[in-house]
């Protein structure tokens, strides 16, 4: 199978890096838990994109398999994290992550 990829690999990686950084900064800067979760999803999708692109470049199925894993991971993560968010919202009646500083050493 010849690759139908016309976009250079570097461009895709560059996009993935930008997405990843956006996500990372989002996690660091945002205080709303929902937005932090969204940022995490963006980071994961950036990784997924990089995997798929690399897999396509070397004509290996591994990249797509890894993306499947990432999807499963994201689904599991969302299930747990949304549960936490609901609990958090009920207990503190806010979504501000900085209020959750009770659990310290």
């Amino acid at each position: 199978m010849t690759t139908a990829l016309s976009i250079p690999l570097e461009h895709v990686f560059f996009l993935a890096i930008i997405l990843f950084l956006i996500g990372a900064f989002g996690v660091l800067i945002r205080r709303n838990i929902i937005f932090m979760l969204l940022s995490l999803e963006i980071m994961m999708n950036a990784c997924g994109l990089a995997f798929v692109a690399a897999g396509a470049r070397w004509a290996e199925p591994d990249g797509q398999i890894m993306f499947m894993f990432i999807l499963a991971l994201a689904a599991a993560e969302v299930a747990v994290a949304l549960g936490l968010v609901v609990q958090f919202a009920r207990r503190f009646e806010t979504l501000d992550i900085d209020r959750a500083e009770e659990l310290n050493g």
Partner: protein
Amino acid sequence: MHLLWAIPALPLAGFLILFLTEGRLPRAMVSNIGAGSVGLAALLTGYVAWQFISSDSTSFTSSSWTWMIVGEFNVSFRLWVDALSLVMVSVITGVGFLIHWYATGYMSEEEGYSRFFCYMNLFVFAMLILVMGDNLLLLFLGWEGVGLCSYLLIGFFHKVPEFGYAARKAFVVTRVGDTFLIIALFLLFREVGSLEIQEGLVYARENMSDASTINTIICLLLLGGAVGKSAQVPLQTWLPDAMAGPTPVSALIHAATMVTAGVYLIARMQDFFMLSQTAMLCVAAVGLITLLIASFTALVQSDIKRVLAFSTMSQIGYMFFALGVGAWSAGLFHLMTHAFFKALLFLASGSVILAMHHEQNMFKMGGLWKKLPIPFIAMLVGSAALVALPLTSGFFSKDAILLKAWKSDSDFATLFWTVAVIAAFLTSLYTVRMMVLTFFGKPRSEMHELKKESLWHPSRIRTVVPFGLLAVLSIAGGWMGFEFTSDLFGDKGVHAEFHFDPIALLTLGVPFAGVVVGYFLFASDLIDRRRLIKNKMGELLSKFWGSGWGFDWVYDTLIVKPFRFIAQTRLNRNDVVDLFFNLIKFLANLFHHILSMFQTGHVRWYAFTMVGGLLLVFLAVVWI
């Protein structure tokens, strides 16, 4: 020989069943499992022995699996039975079964009935591994196993603190010997490169010279191990205290089998010992010294079981002595006959003690022969064998040892022989004293209300059968036995034939002389016994002998008390060792505080440090 493995496996199975059910089984079933497993093993041993005698081979082996392989060091779980082990296995399973049988009656009113048989079965298993193992490490496994069971069973009545102390004492003192043994194993491995017994013996025969120093050291260390296990001087102090255990335990472990493990070890390593004159001399000397010390001590004891304990020590002294002068088969023969008659004596004394409501002081007994006829007869037979009256089993074995000692080419043969004969005389003295005090004379205590339904209740009549069988063995064990053991080591020489020379006559006459003198000393009114004891010399001697020649006192002063002092005073509270451990505690505490500072509870701070760390790793990868 494919059935060989089943002999130790049966008691092991019994142990496992009793252990896992934790005493929930009914007593009848416990008896059947506990005694039955050993009984089946005895039957199987009989079958193996019959096959062994009718076959031409000199040994049976049975390989099961490899225990461990570490580099060159290879230990397989192989059982090896030749004539030497077969004698031991027969004694362990045969006498062991009779004692188990007796114990089903003796222990029937005690708490922890199931626990008792559980430990006993484990003991039989460990002892069988000890004598059947084809590897010194396997032997050591059994060696430690029987030590453990000895500890558990001495302290069987665990509600009495003194018994627990006796158990710990036995454990710790034998551990001293075990340390010697394991060092001997290390040295042997370094010399021979293997712990396989047969390989080692071949190596000793072919590669070692007579004057080899390392061989002498190994033999002396092995002797150290044997001394600890077999309660010989100077590690003999635990055996009298071990009498705290139930009487069947004393009979099985501390008379018939475990304490003879040392004799077995030396006999097993014969080819090493043969090369070293020094080691042989030490074995003989240890045996003789123990023989004398124990005989004198037995003369002044008041506790019937302690008399038997010291008697056991002295008889094992005979065995060591026999090994030391090269009378290998005679020593082993004595081991076998001693197992018969000493088990009988212990069981009979157990019946007496039970009938007297756990009274062990002979001075509170007396005149019991009419009330306890069967123990009396049993004890009489056992005593006759112990003092070696002609035609009893003890006579054949002891006579063989004494004759062989006389004929041995050692420089000290005459001295050795003289001491051994004196000890034989003392043996008859203390035996007569024990019999007279226990069974004859006037009853000396008010406690003579014998329990109705005691040992002679129909349900307990089963205790009589072991008496009968052991009595038969004590008499007849000598007639058939010596042929069996005599060609073990190829020394066909000494049979207990009746030689018409003065030495043999003297050997023959000494027990009678002892009995006659003992009668005049302890039973007749011709000699005023009070005047004999009530003077300075007599009091001093009886006190000195009574305390076991002061060994306990010496160890107490030299080791136990200083150790306690160091352990208990403030001197030791903050010592160097503690310093190290306090440092660990301090560091753990410090790191805990430092690390807990990082846990701020700010989730975004955690995320930031994670990203920062990631960046650092990236930078490091790029730059390096």
